[in-house]
């Protein structure tokens, strides 16, 4: 099996166990203020870290390229309350235009 398959299967099992844990474990295990507060903050931290890395990193190098313009246009679309698909398409189109015009790689 390829590493990608291992990742797909491992993460799938892990995510399912998280779902099942909530339905199965005694309330006292999860229902603690600190556990709840950390769990609330986790998605924001991880997703914003992913935004940053996916925009400004290539491997272990930091770069400024057309993806930054794409992200900026995505933020504008979000401020205008655009739906998910529109946000993604606007970002892709902006990056494509920047590249085709030679403004960014």
């Amino acid at each position, binding site marked *: 099996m390829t590493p*990608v398959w291992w990742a797909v299967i491992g993460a799938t099992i892990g995510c399912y166990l998280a779902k099942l844990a909530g339905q199965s474990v005694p309330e006292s295990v999860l229902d603690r203020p600190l556990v709840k507060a950390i769990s609330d903050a986790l998605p924001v931290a*991880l997703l914003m870290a992913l935004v940053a890395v996916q925009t*400004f990193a290539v491997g272990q190098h930091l770069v400024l390229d057309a993806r930054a313009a794409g992200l900026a246009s995505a933020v504008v679309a979000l401020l205008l309350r655009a739906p998910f698909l529109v946000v993604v398409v606007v970002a892709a189109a902006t990056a494509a235009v920047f590249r085709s015009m030679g403004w960014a790689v």
Partner: protein
Amino acid sequence: MSTHEPHHAPWTDERRGIVANALGVGIAVAAYGVSFGAISVTGGLTVLQTQVLSALMFTGGSQFALIGVLAAGGGAAAAVATSVLLGVRNAFYGLSMAPVLRVHGLRRAVAAQLTIDESTAMAVSRSTEHDDGRASRFAFWATGLSVFVFWNLATLLGSVGAGALGDPKRLGLDAAIPAGFMALVWPRLRDRRSWSIGLCAAAMALVLTPFLRPGVPVLMTASVAVVAGVLEVRRRTPEIDGARTDGGAA
């Protein structure tokens, strides 16, 4: 006993309304699904791997995280860890749904799989007081099943469609990945506190990028969430020395 009490609104009407809402949410989610399918294949996964994620993992944020870390050249372990950490919130959804659903055995196994943002939100939006949770239960199952069907069909559409598009970079599809994450996190950036957490994590990930394998910097930002959680709990529980300071000021 309470299930036999007369209702203010006839149950068939309420049920119809719930089904309509469930279908609406399913269609809205399909937009994410198409993006996920396209981005996953662009990031190097096969159509089959992409579909396995939508059918068996079935929790959007974790799916996006897994393909994001893998596409960035991260190792399988970092990808799995990031993905599972993002899925931890579903445990808390399950915790609040369990007393409403009251299912066991196979039904519990299925209910767990359908425990996601949308099904939980629709279920908790229904009061459980006057009908013993019947509407809430129905909303959970209807929304969960609707999202499951639309999410999987949309994923297939996106993954097969993206393969036919051509050079992903020329089309700017690499910029679609961070935009997708931004759209996922956007509703959670409600206040100054969540912005602080997000920006700290973003900065930390970038600072660590030159020094660690791809995928690991993102994982390290879980520590930002831990610190934020500790600070939040401290803020909410007024401590003894906090009271003492107040007394001194007065």
